[in-house]
C-alpha cells in the first residue's frame, strides 16, 4: 500500500518527538502502519531525536547509585508481556491498524450516529471532542462544512471524494486527510462505502442548511 495523502511534517515530527495528544498520535501511528514513505521520514526524525539526545548537556549528573541499581536488576527475569488484545468478533474482518486494537477490545457494537453513519468512540485521553471509528454507507454525502479545529481522518477501507477550494481529491485506504480550521470541504463516500478512523478538535461549522441539520441531529 502506498498512500498518496500524508500527515503534514510538523504533525509527524510532533508524533515522533512524543508530544502529540493521544488521539492525533493514534491517527499518525495508524497511518505509519500503512505508509512506508512516512516510516522512512519517521526514521530520519528519530535520528534527529537521537542526535539531540547525544547533545543533551548534563549540568547535574544523576546520582552514582543509579548505575548500581540498574546493574542489580539486569539479571532479573523479564516480566512476560501481555498478549495483544484481540478484536471483538464483529470487527475481526475489518482492516483495523494494530495500534487501535487495544482501544476496541471491549466494544460490543456500532452505534448509529446519523442515517448512513455508524460510530464506535475510542476511549482516548485528551480527545478534545471526538476520536472514533466511523463506517459510512455507500454514496453518503457530507454537505459543505468547516472545522472549529484540526480534523484528521484516515481511510481504512473504501474511500471518498473530497471537494474544497484546494480542488478535488480522492482518499483511498492509507490516506490521511488533515483539515485545518480554515478549510471548508464537501465529502462524498464512494460506492463501496468507507471505514475511517478520525480525531477532531473543535466543532463542525455548517456551511449550508443541510449541513446545519445534520450537525444538529448527529450532535457533531
Amino acid at each position, binding site marked *: 500500500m502506498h498512500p498518496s495523502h500524508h500527515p503534514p511534517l510538523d504533525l509527524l515530527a510532533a508524533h515522533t*518527538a512524543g508530544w502529540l495528544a493521544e488521539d492525533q498520535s493514534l491517527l499518525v501511528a495508524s497511518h505509519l502502519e500503512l505508509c512506508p514513505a512516512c516510516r522512512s521520514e519517521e*526514521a530520519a526524525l528519530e*535520528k534527529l*531525536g*537521537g542526535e539531540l539526545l547525544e547533545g543533551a548537556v548534563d549540568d547535574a549528573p544523576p546520582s552514582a547509585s543509579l548505575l548500581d541499581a*540498574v546493574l542489580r536488576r539486569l539479571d532479573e527475569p523479564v516480566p512476560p508481556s501481555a498478549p495483544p488484545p484481540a478484536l471483538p468478533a464483529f470487527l475481526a474482518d475489518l482492516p483495523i491498524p494494530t495500534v487501535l486494537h487495544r482501544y476496541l477490545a471491549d466494544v460490543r457494537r456500532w452505534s448509529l450516529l446519523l442515517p448512513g453513519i455508524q460510530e464506535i468512540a475510542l476511549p482516548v485521553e485528551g480527545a478534545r471532542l471526538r476520536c472514533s471509528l466511523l463506517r459510512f454507507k455507500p454514496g453518503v454525502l457530507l454537505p459543505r462544512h468547516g472545522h472549529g479545529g484540526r480534523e484528521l481522518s484516515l481511510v481504512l477501507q473504501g474511500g471518498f471524494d473530497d471537494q474544497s477550494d484546494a480542488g478535488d481529491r480522492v482518499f483511498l485506504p492509507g490516506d490521511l486527510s488533515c483539515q485545518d480550521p480554515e478549510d471548508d470541504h464537501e465529502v462524498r463516500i464512494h460506492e463501496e462505502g468507507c471505514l475511517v478512523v478520525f480525531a477532531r478538535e473543535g466543532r463542525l461549522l455548517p456551511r449550508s442548511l443541510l449541513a446545519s441539520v445534520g450537525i444538529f441531529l448527529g450532535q457533531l
Partner: protein
Amino acid sequence: MREVSEARSKSAFTRLFQWYAPRICVWLRQRGASVIQAEELAQDVMLDVWRQASRYDPGRASVAAWVFTIARNKHVDRIRRERRPKPEHDGLLVPAPSPDLGEATGVAQRRGRVHAALQQLPDAQAAVIRSTFLDEETQQRAADLHGVPLGTIKSRTRLAFGRLRELLSADGPDD
C-alpha cells in the same frame, strides 16, 4: 552495542549507561520531569536497552536514535498513565512496527535526508524544527526570547516544516 546485544557484556552496558543515562535525565527534565522522576525513568529506559538489545538493528537506526525512541515511549507512557484515571490500560503506546526487510534499504537511502534538508534551511527555520523536539514550554521560552507570541512561533514551525517537506520531495526518489 554489539558487545551488549551478542556477548551480553555488562562492562559494555556500563559504558552505554554512563554515556546515555545522564543525557536521558537531561532530556526528561527538559520535558518537565522532576529529578527523581527522570532518574527512575532513565533506569527503566536503560533496563529496556539491556533487555531489548537483541532487537536493535544497526541497519535501521543509530544507537542514539534507538535509545531516543525507548526514552520517548517511556515518557509518553508515564504522561498518559498520569492523566488516565484508571491504571488498567497500562502502557498504551504500542511501538510502531519495524519496516520489513525489503524496505530497510530504502530507509537507509533516505536516512540523512532530513539532515541534508535541514542544512539548506535558514538558521531560524532549522532552529524551530529542532525546538519541536523539545516541549511547548521550550517553544514558549523561544517566543519570550524573541518577543513574539507563541502563535507566531507555532506558525513559523509550520512554515519551516512545509519548506523542509519541499526540500525532501525535491531531492532523492520518493518511495
